[in-house]
């Protein structure tokens, strides 16, 4: 089972009802799906909930998976669509439009404690990533963090590779502006 390709596992589940095939698929992809979701929503509890929804949706829709396509592309398309839907629902709950990013020039603690500084930097990076629009964030997460090529990310997002290139460029430009104190 461990060496069985994804598509064969799908067939085992479809034709023979092999739940262990689903377990194996989940074992292979859970970590990456969950980290993708977290990098989009920035909250551990919410990331767990959305990840669960991703796999439930995938299993509900597994009959629609076209085995000529890559399973991972299909799964990450489900992942991104589920995440965007979640972010859309979340955006409709009251938010504070006054909230702004911490000023990186003033928020850094003068303490020499490296761990503290690293934690603060991590928070600033997270805040900067969170400030990107969902689609810019999605492109940055898929390509820069999850290692998909722009063409693969385009397939996942259902747009052109040019669109992904532009989104990455814009995402990086905004992140560099927000994190310039740490990049100089």
């Amino acid at each position, binding site marked *: *089972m*461990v060496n069985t390709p994804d598509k064969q596992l799908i067939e085992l589940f479809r034709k023979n*009802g*092999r*739940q*262990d095939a689903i*377990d*194996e698929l*989940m*074992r*292979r*992809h*859970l*970590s*990456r799906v*969950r*980290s993708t979701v*977290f*990098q989009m929503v920035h909250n*551990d509890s919410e990331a*767990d909930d959305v990840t*669960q929804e991703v*796999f*439930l949706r995938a*299993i*509900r829709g597994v009959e629609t998976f076209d085995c000529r396509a890559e399973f991972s592309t299909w799964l990450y398309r489900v992942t991104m669509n589920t995440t965007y839907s979640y972010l859309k629902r979340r*955006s*409709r*709950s*009251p*938010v504070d*439009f*006054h909230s702004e990013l911490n000023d990186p020039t003033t928020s850094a603690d003068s303490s020499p404690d490296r761990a503290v500084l690293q934690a603060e930097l*991590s928070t600033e990076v*997270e805040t900067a*990533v969170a400030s990107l*629009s*969902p*689609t*810019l964030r999605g492109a*940055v997460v898929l*390509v*820069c*963090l999850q*290692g998909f*090529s*722009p063409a693969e990310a385009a397939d996942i997002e*259902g*747009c*052109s*590779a*040019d*669109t992904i*290139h*532009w989104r*990455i*460029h814009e995402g*990086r430009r905004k*992140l560099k502006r927000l*994190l310039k104190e740490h990049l100089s």
Partner: protein
Amino acid sequence: MNENLPDDRLDNMLRDWAEERTVSSEHLDNLQDRIVEAIGDENLSSDRTVATSRRQVATSAVSRPEPPYTRRPISLRRVSLVSRLVGVTLLALLAFIWSAQLADYGHSTGQLADDERAEIPDYARLSESQLRERMIVLSEMKGVFGKQLHWLAETDSRFEVGLRDGSSASDESLSSGDALEIAVRVIVEERSSSRDEWRRAWSVDVISQSEEVVELAAKDADQSTMTMWAYVLPDGMVAIDSELSFSENGNPGTTEKAAPFRAAFSNVQKDRQSSEELLNGANGVEYRVFQTVAILNKKVG
């Protein structure tokens, strides 16, 4: 073509953050158990064999591939051109030309699907007559600015022309003959509560070329900003990414104060189709944003 070179320092910083926020294998084990349980609860496997536990599956590290930093030949040139855009406020004469057409709100004959007609107000649509008028204005502006012309935009109080500087004017300008030109109307409305009437907080009409970035920059701290990028997909749909913001006093063209607003949207829309987004803001203020797109030189005229 596009170019998107990696930025090692930024990307390393992002990866450090991602690594730091990676959850433990125990956390993942618990999450997988939870998902298996949820699958059982849904009875998704009622006709399947009994679900196995994740622990019955041999474990192996789930590897994260290294980012394949592609070094494609590019479109950074295009993006760099954007950074050199010069926003020019035109004379009242130009504003008058377009504003006269904006007065056409409410008389649209937009070609929307029947199920949308009840949802989208007429003034949010772009009618055939408005599109024809925009093409006339565009043609006139091309005559004035030639290849420097990049985009046209009108908010409630401003008419702006985006120009490239002379050295960067190229075939990518709006005056190039074969590129697809896109008109986009964005209208933001707000109300203090669901019992109140919607009132227009901001609007803009933009003409740009496919894949060009339009940046309406604030001229001072109180004015609105918009960044928009539209792209005609091979199937004729139009992908639009846009970000809007305005501050408390920053609704040009309106005398009333509005609540601060900031939002980002990404839609894929049909030609002549309108979309609607509903948002909740601070202090109970509700927003709705209409966005209509039309390809000017494909079906119009």
